[in-house]
């Protein structure tokens, strides 16, 4: 009876929903505490204390912020396109969440272990620009529109190099399945043979998530706060949380493509006792720390420098490295499925 229910259509639906819940709840708590971690890490790097009033060590701060945001008034500017104005933050946040459907946190532990997982991730991350553009246009404000234009150009440019970096990972694996990509790294993590690609991917990830030093779409010193100047209350909070969810997603992608996903760093006894999801979590946290570290360290890029870096440095470099990788695999006979 039970087995029959779980293999029926409805049963599969229920199981999928439960799995999604099991992934979403830790993810959302992670997003909340990433905002806290960012403030603490920045504070520590600037010799301050950071949030320390609400709860022990300020641990309830994210919830206090969320409640504050919920009780504020949502102001919709005059002349704004109402529906799109409210829809834009949902796109940003929703896209950051649905990408997690294919991310494996352990061997065959993904909500959907699909054959084209890598392309799915790339497709979802290429949609991220819409939340920003629509927000900028729907606000009916010059500053918001300027921010949206900047971010459209920026995200499209850096997607090109991300695509080429992903291709060079793909050439090494011979599969678009994320599970296979991690399993292919059991001997050596791709961060070592593909080190330049790893660095380029991480920097492009910073640009793709609009984080410092590439946070030009925000650019509070020139265009106030860029695409979300007009947003308030919960719609602002959704943009804010979307940015952090995107950071976690980017870190997850970096972990899967280059840092061996759930695999332990050394395949020996004390390390292999630690379960896979813990390793995955630790690696994601390491990447996130670098995100915060970069924000505390580097000043913002100028717009022409950003474009120059994307098109004149990263694009040729990643294209070149793709050819080198493919040639090396061919010469040494390491091509998968050869």
């Amino acid at each position, binding site marked *: 009876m039970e087995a029959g229910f779980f293999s029926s*259509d409805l049963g599969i*639906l229920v199981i999928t929903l439960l799995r999604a819940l099991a992934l979403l709840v830790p993810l959302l708590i992670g997003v909340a505490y990433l905002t806290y971690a960012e403030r603490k890490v920045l504070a520590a790097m600037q010799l301050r204390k950071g949030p320390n009033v609400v709860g022990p060590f300020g641990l309830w701060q994210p919830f206090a912020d969320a409640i504050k945001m919920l009780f504020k008034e949502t102001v919709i500017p005059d002349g704004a396109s109402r529906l*799109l104005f409210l829809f834009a933050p949902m796109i940003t946040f929703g896209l950051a969440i649905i990408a997690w459907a294919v991310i494996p946190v352990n061997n065959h532990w993904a909500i959907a272990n*699909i*054959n*084209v997982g890598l*392309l*799915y991730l*790339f*497709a979802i991350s*290429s*949609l991220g*620009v*819409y939340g920003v*553009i*629509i927000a900028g*246009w729907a606000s009916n404000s010059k500053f918001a*529109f300027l921010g949206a*234009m900047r971010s*459209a150009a920026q995200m*499209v440019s850096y*997607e090109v190099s991300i695509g080429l970096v992903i291709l060079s990972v793909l050439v090494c694996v011979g599969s*678009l399945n994320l599970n296979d990509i991690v399993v292919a790294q059991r001997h050596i993590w791709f961060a070592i043979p593909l080190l330049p690609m790893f660095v380029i991917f991480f920097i492009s990830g910073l640009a793709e998530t609009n984080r410092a030093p590439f946070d030009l779409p925000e650019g509070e010193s020139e265009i106030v706060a860029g695409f979300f100047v007009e947003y308030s209350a919960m719609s602002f909070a959704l943009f804010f949380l979307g940015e952090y969810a995107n950071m976690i997603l980017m870190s997850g992608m970096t972990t899967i493509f280059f840092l061996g996903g759930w695999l332990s760093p050394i395949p020996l006894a004390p390390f292999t006792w630690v379960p896979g999801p813990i390793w995955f979590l630790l690696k994601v946290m390491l990447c996130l720390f670098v995100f915060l570290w970069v924000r505390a360290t580097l000043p913002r890029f100028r717009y*022409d*420098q950003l474009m*120059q870096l994307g098109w004149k440095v990263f694009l040729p470099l990643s294209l070149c490295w793709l050819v080198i990788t493919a040639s090396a695999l061919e010469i040494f006979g390491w091509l998968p499925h050869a």
Partner: protein
Amino acid sequence: MIVALAFYVFAAILLLSACMVITARNPVHSVLFLILAFINAAALFVLAGAEFLAMVLVIVYVGAVAVLFLFVVMMLDVDFAALREGFQRYAPLGLLIGFILMVEIGAVAVGWTVTPAAHLASQVPMPADMSNTAALGDLIYTRYMFAFELVALLLLVAMIGAIVLTHSGERRSRRQDISAQHQRPIDETLTMVKLGIGKGARQMTQSAPASQETIR
């Protein structure tokens, strides 16, 4: 059952949003409906088992083409009153062209006969031991290599054309030349000045160049 339900939902949204593309008053809304149509088409591809095509549709059309499209449409300053001005006058002509096109399409569709053996001859059977991504790659890079490279060449020509059209030759904007900045010697950029009491740096360098020290 769920698959059939999903098909009808996606197909309905696809048709509806395709209609909205041409009926929406605001061009930006049109483009957004076009994007919705693309995404639903991708979902239909997934239902048909063509997951690679679905993802490529989203990446290429939604992720790149439609972004630029939206970008251009948002920046256009379209005067809608001027656009509708000649509507009454040109409507009969437009209807006539539309009618002719419809009749032609109808004539072709009615007269179309497909021999039952045609699909056996033209199609390459799906290999059982491959995912459809691998099968497509296998076909494109072997049998259709020439066509594939021709398409790539076409895109390259279009790209070069666009660059030539927009490149004016002269450098009007001020650009940063990073290597030139790095090659600049220190004595061109920095002078050390010993300030006398009650005198500014400019007076010192003008009156007494001897006290000026350059650093190496």
